[in-house]
């Protein structure tokens, strides 16, 4: 074995810490465990950006597609080869659907993958952008 039992005990206090932390922040807990992969979504004047955390997933194992006004992120996390002593990292297929309430330009959508972070930039279509309306003087 690579590890002594000591390592198992070392894990314990931090797990308790995590557990207590989750108790204090039930919202945080529900968000974290609900869907995979976890995402951050931000909006600015020009576009919507989705950040998804997908460690260990190769570019070829990610499938991005549009279905009406939602984006579908599909992929697979492949398990390590060999004899397992410990397995904590999830593996297997995953899917997450993100709905938009505004229209995005599907043809100009760009995605990149770096350090296990998938970044998808969806430009807004012209009519979805904020329009300033000028008030005419009488």
């Amino acid at each position: 074995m690579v590890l002594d039992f000591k390592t198992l005990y070392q894990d314990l206090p931090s797990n308790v810490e995590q557990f207590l932390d989750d108790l204090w922040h039930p919202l945080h807990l529900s968000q974290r465990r609900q869907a995979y992969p976890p995402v951050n979504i931000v909006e600015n004047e020009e576009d919507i950006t989705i950040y998804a955390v997908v460690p260990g997933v190769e570019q070829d194992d990610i499938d991005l597609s549009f279905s009406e006004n939602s984006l579908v992120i599909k992929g697979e996390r492949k398990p390590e080869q060999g004899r397992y002593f410990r397995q904590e990292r999830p593996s297997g297929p995953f899917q997450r659907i993100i709905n938009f309430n505004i229209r995005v330009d599907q043809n100009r959508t760009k995605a990149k993958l770096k350090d296990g972070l998938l970044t998808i930039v969806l430009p807004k279509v012209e009519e979805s952008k904020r329009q300033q309306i000028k008030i005419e003087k009488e």
Partner: protein
Amino acid sequence: MSATRDSRESSLPRVHPAADIVQRDDSYYIVLDMPGVRKDDLDVSVDKDVLTVAAETSYPDITNQKQWENEFGNVYFVRRFTLSDAVDRDGIKASMKNGVVSLHLPRAERVQPKKIEIESG
């Protein structure tokens, strides 16, 4: 070495990265999910029988933008493993790809099974 790291104050929340430990051929591998960590920011060290893996994530700053969802943020990943004598400490190698750290721990020479010849008397 680990003493300095223990006293290191990272303002980010400390998180234990999920780890797999597997045996393949004559080596052990520790694989850790550390998304958002740049290769240059990864810190792997061995102090006596304790192997420490630590790094801060570098996710893009989104605080000034309108947020729809916020399910993750920057963290300080840190995890320690106690090595047994079965590992060749000098031969440990680390690599990083797609936010996953792979540590290659070769088996120590003397732990490999050795056949003892029986001399005919």
